[in-house]
């Protein structure tokens, strides 16, 4: 933001929105990290904690909604200020959603911890770390109003999508080779899908930041490289020679 408002409390109100978003972002990032860590360590107790902590995000979202509505009604912001409030509202909804995905990962971790360990869990964890980095960067971009950094996050989602596609294939193959992996494999696929969705949501925050800074939507469409929806892995028995 260029200079301060004549009415100083207006600045304080806007800063408060940013602070809530930063806090929500930090929390979402931690929730995802903890959920992934719990999954890797097959730690059901830690997963329970993740589930428990999700309501903090919900509370903050409600708080932000109230603050933003109040600000709109009382200050009638214009231009950059208006965009800041809209961006905060949209972003908080997305961060809350990211929290829900992390919570779902934790729930599946509890199920996964009761089944045989499955190899691709490590690839899923790598995907999770990638997305976690994206969340961190997009929040930095948000707080520092850095459109270039936000654009960078949008492009990194392609990596996540590619990883998701290859992981999908890998897990299907595991399940085909050994039916004992079907339960864990299915849960793992959902975990991977959750992470992939978090990646998409993170890019939507990046888009919000771009609009906030520039006042217009980013031009080129982001390349979609998640092909998992179209992926087919042929059964080895059909192939006949596989083995």
């Amino acid at each position: 933001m260029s200079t301060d408002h004549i009415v100083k409390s207006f600045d304080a109100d806007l800063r408060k929105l940013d602070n809530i978003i930063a806090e929500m972002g930090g929390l979402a990032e931690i929730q995802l990290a903890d959920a992934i860590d719990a999954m890797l360590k097959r730690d059901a107790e830690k997963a329970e904690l993740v589930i428990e902590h999700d309501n903090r995000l919900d509370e903050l979202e409600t708080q932000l909604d109230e603050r933003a509505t109040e600000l709109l009604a009382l200050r009638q912001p214009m231009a950059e200020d208006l965009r800041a409030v809209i961006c905060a509202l949209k972003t908080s909804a997305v961060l809350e959603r990211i929290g829900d995905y992390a919570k779902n990962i934790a729930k599946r971790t509890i199920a996964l911890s009761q089944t045989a360990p499955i190899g691709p869990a490590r690839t899923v964890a790598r995907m999770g770390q990638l997305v976690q980095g994206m969340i961190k960067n997009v929040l930095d971009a948000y707080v520092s109003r850095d459109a270039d950094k936000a654009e960078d996050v949008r492009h990194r989602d392609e990596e996540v999508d590619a990883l998701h596609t290859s992981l999908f294939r890998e897990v299907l193959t595991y399940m085909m080779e050994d039916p004992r992996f079907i339960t864990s494999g299915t849960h793992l696929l959902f975990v991977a899908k959750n992470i992939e969705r978090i990646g998409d949501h993170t890019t939507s925050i990046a888009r919000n930041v771009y609009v906030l800074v520039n006042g217009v939507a980013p031009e080129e469409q982001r390349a979609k490289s998640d092909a998992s929806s179209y992926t087919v892995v042929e059964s080895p028995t059909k192939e006949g020679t596989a083995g």
Partner: protein
Amino acid sequence: METQETAATGAAAPAGFIADTAEDPKIRTRGCSVFYGDKQALFDVDLDIQENEVTALIGPSGCGKSTYLRCINRMNDTIDGCSVTGSIRLDGDEIIDKGVDVVLLRARVGMVFQKPNPFPKSIFENVAYGPRIHGLVSSKSELEGMVENSLKRAGLWEEVKDRLHQPGTGLSGGQQQRLCIARAIAVEPEVILMDEPCSALDPIATAKIEELIDELRENFTIVIVTHSMQQAARVSQKTAFFHLGNLIEHGDTNKVFTNPDNEKTQDYITGRFG
């Protein structure tokens, strides 16, 4: 060939020049400057105002917006030591010219002021005065029809039809302002200038005037000076931002209030200076 044309225009164009578009604006202002004695109040303004649109002029006090507004019907002539240079064309007719009949000009360009200023006469006479002196009517019944029609268009008829011969000054502030609008439109002007028409009114009366402005746009071109950014945003299609006598930015209202091009505009409308 196109390059040559561009180069030719470019060479002749002074700074801040707006290319003349194929579609002629209702009011075309070029290089308009205003001086109060030695003091320059308006600097070389280029501005196109389109027909049947509401153009809002905004900016901090002393920015030149009212000065510009008053150029359009030569109200600055009434101020001693004030001189206006440059060109303002109304449908192609130059109005910054000693030879212009200002009485006729002011019939084409009506004005509504900040404070409602009805004549100390009856409601009927307030509206009838203009058409009568401009000889727009030939019979009493025609005059009555015109008064009724003007009051209806100003959204005041229902409230005053039973007391047309009571003094206009007995109405409420909002009603008085609508009476002034009825008086302005009775002479069938093309343009209506409004100088902070709602600043003395309560929110309900303000809303009525704003609704009226939106309806009047169908038949008139409206230029409004307002200190309320929200009002400018609500009523206008185009917004022009003035600062220290310069026109800083002019464009679609929705663009100016969501994503202005100029940093000064942004600072002003977001309340960072003014």
